[in-house]
């Protein structure tokens, strides 16, 4: 495995969905894609573990899905446009998922957005985050 450095590696709290991520997350994301169909959503909710066995994902990816660990899914190659289909299947809003990923309640996240969103200042590079939380 060649580990390439990228100009975006220094950006905090961000997992650029490049070819490496896409490669690692392929089957996780294609599982999410299957949830576009109502009958698949039903089958998934009825037996999550069984449904996930159809897809050659890693066990870690399956666990992250079953735990609804939204951040972990992203770290394991999930793409937000795909994983949010799991949220839709659960009847969760996008803001709920977004909040979870940054450790905020849906209410606090929504309030942050109403107040103009998370500022760019303090959130541009990893060094700005060292020792402190995301600047929300």
């Amino acid at each position, binding site marked *: 495995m060649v580990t390439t450095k990228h100009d975006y590696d220094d950006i905090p709290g*961000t997992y650029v969905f490049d070819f490496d991520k896409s490669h690692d997350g392929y089957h996780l994301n*294609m599982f999410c894609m299957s949830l576009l169909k109502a009958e698949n959503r039903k089958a998934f909710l009825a037996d999550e573990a069984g449904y996930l066995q159809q897809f050659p994902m890693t066990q870690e990816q399956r666990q992250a899905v079953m735990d609804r660990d939204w951040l972990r899914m992203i770290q394991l190659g999930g793409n937000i446009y795909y994983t949010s289909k799991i949220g839709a299947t659960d009847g969760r809003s996008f803001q709920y998922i977004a909040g979870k990923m940054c450790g905020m309640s849906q209410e606090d996240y929504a309030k942050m957005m109403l107040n103009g969103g998370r500022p760019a200042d303090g959130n541009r590079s990893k060094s700005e985050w060292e020792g402190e939380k995301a600047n929300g």
Partner: protein
Amino acid sequence: MAKILAGVGTSHVPAIGAAIDLGKTQEPYWQPIFAGYEKSKQWLKEVDPDVVILVYNDHATAFALDVVPTFALGIADEYQPADEGWGPRPVPVVKGHSELSRHLGTSLIFDHFDMTIVNEMAVDHGLTVPLSLMCGQPEAWPFKVVPLCVNVVQYPPPTGARCFDLGKAIRKAVEAFDEDLKVVIFGTGGMSHQLHGERAGMINREWDNKFLDDLSADPQRLTQIPHVEYIRETGAEGVETVMWLIMRGALNEQVEEVHRHYHVPGSNTAVGHIILENR
């Protein structure tokens, strides 16, 4: 001869589509967003284009990760609104201008753009939300559409410079089309949004507005912005604003900004909108 009269930049947030479809446009949360499009709707009615070239991205709907085209051009007679998981949006079918599309496809490939040609495709909120914002809720869309779907989901998207050059090649092809057509081009997506990770919800109002300024004042600068700057400054998914440069490249060097609107928040993102007329 066909002619491009103007360009429109606009966000295409899915929640905006839902707000329209559910009749929530007058709610306090949504009202300021839609207010910014009132003038635009009037403007578009007056321009009355025959065709809109609509640059957008698909969001894991018609395309998945098996096959990811950088530039996909639709050449069909019509495009069905997609079922994104909760039924298709209750909007009219999108009628294509297949002859213009085919002419564009041929011209672009001979001009060394490596287009993916699409004969059949459902279109998601990325394409239909801009139509709703600019036209409201008509029985039928008042113009035909040439869809141009750009990959901005799987990194790397095309560079800003490539997008701008594609716009120029589109303009050249449109002007060589042997039928009198009034054409408007939409660049959609963006502006600031980071939809994932611990930095979700980042908004950079200053950067976005400088981008809007320079669409008329200094588009060349915009073509030189590297992807990493979009990602760092406006959020990972903010890189999709690069699609506006296809629209800009298709216009004259000199354009007049006839309308601008910027609002935060539209769900998780900034909503940006601009209208540029050739002069």
